[in-house]
């Protein structure tokens, strides 16, 4: 691996880490979700500082160039992450469904007591048809 590539990887990893920290501080991301990315960044940085590790591993696996190993590893990790996010999204859609249903039932109960609540719904419903 050329020196330029190694430095580039380290710099971009650190930039990504700083950005992740910033998002956590702005409460835009939870720490548990960020741990994966911190581990990812750590692996990239370690491999950039010690490319010998990548070279040894590449030789064992029969991969021509160590850079290809890094790309392969990153793609694999991304696939794992995307797959687990599909699962997470499915779970979230399920939960949103439950909340929507509960809200509908609750609204019916409160509208029976106070009919003015349904005004906001009428406006919102007609807007979303466009």
């Amino acid at each position, binding site marked *: 691996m050329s020196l330029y590539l190694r430095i580039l990887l380290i710099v971009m990893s650190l930039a990504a880490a700083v950005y992740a*920290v910033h998002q*956590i*501080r702005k*409460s835009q991301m*939870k*720490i*548990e979700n960020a*741990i994966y990315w911190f581990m990812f960044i750590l692996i990239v940085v370690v491999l950039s500082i010690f490319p010998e590790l990548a070279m040894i591993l590449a030789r064992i696996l029969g991969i021509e160039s160590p850079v290809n190993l890094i790309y392969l590893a990153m793609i694999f990790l991304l696939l794992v992450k995307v797959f687990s996010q599909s699962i997470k999204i499915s779970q979230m859609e399920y*939960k949103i469904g*439950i*909340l929507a249903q*509960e809200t509908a039932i609750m609204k019916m109960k409160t509208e029976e007591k106070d009919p003015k609540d349904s005004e906001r719904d009428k406006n919102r419903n007609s807007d979303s048809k466009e």
Partner: protein
Amino acid sequence: MKSIVIIPAYNEEKSIVKTVQDICEHAPEFDYVVVNDCSTDHTLSVCREHHLHVLNLPINLGIGGAVQTGFLYAYKKGYDFAIQFDGDGQHDAKYLHKMRDYMIEHDVDMLISSRFLEKEGFQSTGMRRFGIRYFSILIKLLTGQKITDPTSGMRMINRDILAMYSESYPKDYPEPESVVTIINCKKKVMEYPVIMRKRMEGTSSISPLKSVYYMIKVTLAILFEMLRKYGT
């Protein structure tokens, strides 16, 4: 001064009734609310059967989310004091009065009950004790304040803290992180010695593997809290 006991409950069908009875018997002027975190056992039907006050969450939010629901409810209803209380029988309701009196007398913002101030009663298991000591030391290092029982689930807060927690409260393993937040706001945090019992029925929701994850995640969270304080 209106006070309410918040009892988060996840699958506590066997002990929830006794817990509420304990509170009604020893602290009758305290209101209470059970927050059912979408239990998969018969916790909800047991509560309905005994006409307990229940906030029934339609989805599972975890301990942080469930307790925060209680805080939000308490704040909206105008309570002056709210106390978190476990639904598994580990906590003793006879301390409720004493803690509230102590809070009023010493003008405390947050009073944490501690098993380790006088080292009596159930002192928790080895692994948990190690974790507790770890956080105790970490908090002392970062904030200068000594908290002997940072994971204690019986904590009493006043309305100021109630407002803060209603808006933002950690979703899982919330106890150590939330204490650091309050200390960093220069609020008065003190501890009160109590004796806790062993868990009555059922199992704890934290397994050994989760404990390791807990410690890493909460350590990171506390470090982020400190970042927030020193505003980078």
